[in-house]
């Protein structure tokens, strides 16, 4: 099945009760499949096609406040249009789960893979997980509900997949048995719900004497995810026999001289590159960031204590010096003494192919470089016509 069908299956197995979405390429086939499940009676859920992504998120928030398990999906411009309400979903502590198909942000128009859309939402206090393959997509949608709905956490979760590489590419995926999923994922019982018999006031005005405490609690909840995520992954393995590795997965990092840090489908290519480099005598490794929020700060610090050179691949441009991942990695490694050299590379933007050659070049450049810095890995030089 494709990554988009895997998203739909994840939401179906999790028994999402309210689904609100707006069409956008390359997300649309997720909600098409869900509406099909509902029409056939295979999923007992309310389905709404609202008039914009902004309304989709608002509908999910209110449904979640009313006690329903909710799901939505979007991409690129649609995610940007939701931005205002992403803060409301996390601030109100509604554990909405959203599939995001990573697609470039305009202008110019481009529908291919690029992570700028979700990196631009890194400050909205959503849990953010990037996936490498379609099995991980399906499994993570189920895990997302378990993590987000935890009483100590109560935060919304985005499950990301790369446009077309996953969203529209089919590969074998095992569908977990519904009985096992039901046992793994209890029904949703939020602490506070909209209830006419026990009225509660949500979103009251909080003055300077209270506001900061709301934000502190939000930060505290995100901190709690760093321990809860690996636990949920272990519980998942006990139920389904598969695990994905907590916040960050290490691949051949033992005694490595250079380690690549990346997210999404590029990590599959990177495994091949690492194997090739090892075969030719270069001690290379891969650290796959599975989560960007919470950022795996401690995992990165441990890694930084063991290697001298780190390559960071950013498939997004966020206007900072160095990409979104680069800046966070540098901030983390600076917390340890004798921090390693970190080289950041912009590559694969707007769907440009991230070939093994490009990734290998980035890692070899890192080994040769004398200090940390940022490089546009694969950009074409402008020339006077």
């Amino acid at each position: 099945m494709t990554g988009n069908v895997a998203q739909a299956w994840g939401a179906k197995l999790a028994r999402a009760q309210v689904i609100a979405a707006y069409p956008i390429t390359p997300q649309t086939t997720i909600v098409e499949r869900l509406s099909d499940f509902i029409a056939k009676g295979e999923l007992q859920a309310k389905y709404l096609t609202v008039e914009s992504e902004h309304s989709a998120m608002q509908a999910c928030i209110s449904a979640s406040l009313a006690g329903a398990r909710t799901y939505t999906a979007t991409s690129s411009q649609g995610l940007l249009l939701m931005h205002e309400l992403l803060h409301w979903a996390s601030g109100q502590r509604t554990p909405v789960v959203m599939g995001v198909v990573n697609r470039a942000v305009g202008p110019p128009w481009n529908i291919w893979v690029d992570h700028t859309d979700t990196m631009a939402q890194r400050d909205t206090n959503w849990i953010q997980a990037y996936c490498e393959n379609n099995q991980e997509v399906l499994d993570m949608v189920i895990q997302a509900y378990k993590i987000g709905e935890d009483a100590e956490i109560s935060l919304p979760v985005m499950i990301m997949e790369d446009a077309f590489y996953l969203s529209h590419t089919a590969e074998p995926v095992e569908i977990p048995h519904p009985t096992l999923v039901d046992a793994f994922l209890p029904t949703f019982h939020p602490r506070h719900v909209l209830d006419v018999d026990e009225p509660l006031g949500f979103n009251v005005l909080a003055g300077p004497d209270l506001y900061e405490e709301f934000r502190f609690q939000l930060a505290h909840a995100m901190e709690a995810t760093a321990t809860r995520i690996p636990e949920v992954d272990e519980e998942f393995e006990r139920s389904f026999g598969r695990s994905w590795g907590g916040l960050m997965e290490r691949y051949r990092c033992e005694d490595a001289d250079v380690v690549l840090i990346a997210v999404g489908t590029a990590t599959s290519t990177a495994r091949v590159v690492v194997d090739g480099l090892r075969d030719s005598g270069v001690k290379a490794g891969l650290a796959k960031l599975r989560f960007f929020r919470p950022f795996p700060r401690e995992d990165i610090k441990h890694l930084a204590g063991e290697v001298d050179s780190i390559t960071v691949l950013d498939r997004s441009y966020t206007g900072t010096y160095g990409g979104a991942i680069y800046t966070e990695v540098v901030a983390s490694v600076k917390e340890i003494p004798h921090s390693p050299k970190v080289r950041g590379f912009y590559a694969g933007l707007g769907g440009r192919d991230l070939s093994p050659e490009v990734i290998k070049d980035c890692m070899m450049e890192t080994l040769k470089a004398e200090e940390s810095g940022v490089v546009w890995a694969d950009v074409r030089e402008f020339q006077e016509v």
Partner: protein
Amino acid sequence: MRAHRLPHIWCPGCGLGNALRCYVEAMEASDTPLDKHVCVSGIGCSGRAAGYVNVDSYHTTHGRPIPFATGLKLVRPELEVTVFSGDGDLVTIGGNHLIHAARRNLDLNVLCANNFNYGMTGGQFGATTPYAARTTTTPYGNFEQAFNLPLLVAASGATFVSRWTSLHVRQLTKAIERAFEVDGFAFVEILSPCPVGFGRKNEFADALAEMTHFREKAIVRHDADLREVGITMRREDPIILGNFVDEERPSYFVGKDDLLKSVLEGRE
């Protein structure tokens, strides 16, 4: 037209080619030189129009061609600003902009190709999908009610409101020419087949079948009661076309100048 951008991406039988041709012919027939025409498009299949016409053009984000056109017209009122977009863009995600532009009665032309669904993303239902119509997200039929666009835009205050189909090319071209002429908000709804997205799920075997339906059921009634021109899926119901509203009403600039003049008179 920008010949090097052709052939266009639209499916065989899609109404957008006809609609664009009528727009281009109306531009050529208008008194305004081509370099004073501006084409603004939104998102959806129709969005490509801005790239095909060889006049100044802008392809906006989803739902926002009318705000873009509004800003442009306020700064450069001498330009003939036309929005060429679809129902999904103009009526759903950008619906608020449509009614407010009509209320404001700024001198813009909005050509709305209505194919009753979100065609580009694969045929989902939207705010113009008739009751009971099938789409990819309403496999057993749509249970929501659709907007009646001429009624909506007329009630919002537009100066010119018209509806034709992509089959009625002469009337449509004339209506677009009239939209250019009037001083105020002009809206032309263009009923347009979407054989791949909408037609095939609703028992129109191909584009020709949908166009044949348009031809057989079309009734021209310029003085129609707009409450009765909503589109239904009942095959026996007529499809009412015409130039429904064409009346003088102070446009945005006229209203502004008149008010300022009366308020400031005698203050010198």
